[in-house]
């Protein structure tokens, strides 16, 4: 067999990579394999050359999870084939580089939807498994991992088919394992049936954080999807005033009952996602200044109805509102931004308020803030979701003092039994990872069995000492 060095391959190029937040950045040798066989071959070559390898999808993790400075990054978007579909079990098998965008476009007209979608559909299925992504339905359906029926995983030793039944330890270490157990080359996932491509949405506008949390506690059980957008630049009693949107896929009966939609007409499963514009270049200055953030939040709040029920929204409008503007991260300029997403257990509601207050008092406005309730955790040792409140805040980087403020919040969150989401992270305190993810040791043992040569590596893994105990 021909033994080529990684760097001698066609399509190998050096590229400066970052996550969606723009920081930190590192240079890696990017190779774009076109089939599973090539992935296995590349992993073996990397092991011979003693170089680290990491799979990268569409680069939507915010920090350094998909970066591998000085090493090899596999651009997985070349593995974009749909392998098969079993209508009876509703299970679709796709290659790891298939995007949720492509999968949704394929599934919706056939009457199916992905069981879990994050706030963007521009992620690969492999990346979604590695981050064990969640959506607005976590309280109802759990994270993506609980819908994955089978994985094909490439490691330097070869490839393996794993599932919750077959080598379940390897399966659950890979779900949420941030790409450090191997390369996900194929995913079999169960879809959910839908009758229409529209979502029936109820909107409410609670005037503060407590009211918002109370409404969610009381009512979330009645909805498949629930999420609250919070205004994090107002203090006092209107701190955390919110727009709470909840809903479920609309049935045919609901469609025909809706005004102006009587009978026949348009295709109930029609699906046409659109991108209206793309931010053409990086903003020369940091745009989200405090006045701009205040104005944006005011607009977003006022634009929402005080209370409305039964509104029909399209899938893109309800699930992926930000996808309408391509490359929107460029608005944050060169300094970039970080998304601080945390979960704290039920009962620690005061920590959610504290995070918002501390950031506001420190002068670090959050343009976007999202709150939702998580249901039960899945068996993956590094999976982020656990029962509790999850808060996600987009915070511009490039201000002195932000790091120290977030460090103190990390400690508060760890103390409350909560954790920070690796897929969003570029700056977590490494000494708190063990407290936030108490099953880290268990995960490391499985990881070392799958990749004893430690070929798989990432900037995130190195920064947080995920692969080895900090001395």
């Amino acid at each position, binding site marked *: 067999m021909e033994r080529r060095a990684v760097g001698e391959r066609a399509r190998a190029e050096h590229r*400066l990579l970052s996550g969606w937040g723009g920081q*930190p950045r*590192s240079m890696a040798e990017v190779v774009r394999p076109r089939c599973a066989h090539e992935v296995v071959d590349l992993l073996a070559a990397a092991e011979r050359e003693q170089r680290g390898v990491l799979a990268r999808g569409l680069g939507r993790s915010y920090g350094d999870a998909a970066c591998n400075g000085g090493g090899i990054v596999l651009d997985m978007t070349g593995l974009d084939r749909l392998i098969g579909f079993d209508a009876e079990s509703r299970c679709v098998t796709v290659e790891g580089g298939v995007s949720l965008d492509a999968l949704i476009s394929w599934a919706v007209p056939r009457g199916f939807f992905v069981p879990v979608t994050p706030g963007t559909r521009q992620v690969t299925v492999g990346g979604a498994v590695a981050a064990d992504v969640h959506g607005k339905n976590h309280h109802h359906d759990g994270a993506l991992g609980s819908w994955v029926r089978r994985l094909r995983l490439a490691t330097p030793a070869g490839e393996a088919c794993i599932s919750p039944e077959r080598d379940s330890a390897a399966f659950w270490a890979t779900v949420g394992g941030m790409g450090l157990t191997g390369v996900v080359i194929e995913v079999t996932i169960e879809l959910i049936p839908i009758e229409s491509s529209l979502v029936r949405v109820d909107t409410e506008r609670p005037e503060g954080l407590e009211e918002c949390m109370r409404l969610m506690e009381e009512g979330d059980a009645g909805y498949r999807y629930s999420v609250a957008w919070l205004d994090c630049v107002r203090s006092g009693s209107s701190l955390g005033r919110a727009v709470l949107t909840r809903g479920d896929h609309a049935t045919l009966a609901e469609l025909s009952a809706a005004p102006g939609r009587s009978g026949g007409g348009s295709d109930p499963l029609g699906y046409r996602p659109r991108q209206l514009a793309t931010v053409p270049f990086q903003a020369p200055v940091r745009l989200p200044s405090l006045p701009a953030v205040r104005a944006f939040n005011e607009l977003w709040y006022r634009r929402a109805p005080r209370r409305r029920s039964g509104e029909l929204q399209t899938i893109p409008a309800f699930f992926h509102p930000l996808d309408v503007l391509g490359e929107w991260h460029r608005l944050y300029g060169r300094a970039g931004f970080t998304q601080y997403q945390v979960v704290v257990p039920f009962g620690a509601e005061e920590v959610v308020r504290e995070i918002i207050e501390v950031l506001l008092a420190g002068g670090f406005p959050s343009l976007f803030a999202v709150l939702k309730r998580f249901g039960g955790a899945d068996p993956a040792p590094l999976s982020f979701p656990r029962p509790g409140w999850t808060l996600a805040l987009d915070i511009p980087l490039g201000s002195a003092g932000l790091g120290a403020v*977030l460090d103190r919040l990390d400690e508060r969150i760890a103390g409350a039994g909560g954790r920070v989401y690796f897929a969003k992270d570029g700056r977590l305190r490494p000494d708190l990872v063990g407290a936030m993810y108490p099953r880290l040791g268990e995960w490391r043992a499985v990881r070392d069995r799958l990749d004893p040569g430690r070929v798989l590596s990432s900037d995130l893994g190195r920064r947080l000492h995920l692969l080895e105990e900090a001395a």
Partner: protein
Amino acid sequence: MNDATGMPQTAVVVGGTSEIALAVLDLLAARRLEQVLLASRDLEGLAAAAERVRRAGAREVATLRFDVTAAGDVETLVREATERLGTVDLVLVAAGDLGTADLAELGPERVLAMMATNAGGPAAAMIAFARVMAAQGFGRIVVLSSVAGLRVRRANFVYGAGKAALDGLALALGDAVAGDGVSVTVVRPGFVRTKMTAGMASAPLATDAPAVAAAVVAGMERGDEVVYVPPALRYLFGAVRLLPRAVFRRLPG
């Protein structure tokens, strides 16, 4: 690794007994700094410096007796750093010698030594580490320059000329390696009250090592390429640079 807020986990200090460098390490150790390699000519000073960095919270501090003006020592430092630290996240270049501006004391040997300590040696170290960082795909070099290099004046003309050379080289090196994921931050303090300036009359807008350190760390967090300490010097020296020579040479000091 450097995190999203620009905080390193490993650092090499060229001129490892510098008061400003140690004040920077105090702050970095409170954030992410874990491993440090201090290099200096001053063996005694190194032991005390290592103790201070350990107390500040770094878990692994090594020292290396090193002369920045010796090419072989620079090579040894780079080798030690890559072996000990795994990745070199930050190199802090703090070597320098204020020396003298007294012509009677400035024999050829003294002039060459001052130029080597202030410019040639730090340049060699910076470029050597820039190569390491380009290979690892990331890294930051912070260079302690001085406003004395912005317009060289008679009071410290050899030192100032050395800093002028270093400052220019560092800025352009930053441009040369930006595409490799490596960034260079040039720090331009004014008069800093340290052991190097002990006994000298304090200049206007004088500052101290902790203040310079705070500005350096803030600049790293912001991703600044040039940091003035205090910030007002940016405008003051913008004006000083434009002064006609006839006026400039009459300025006191």
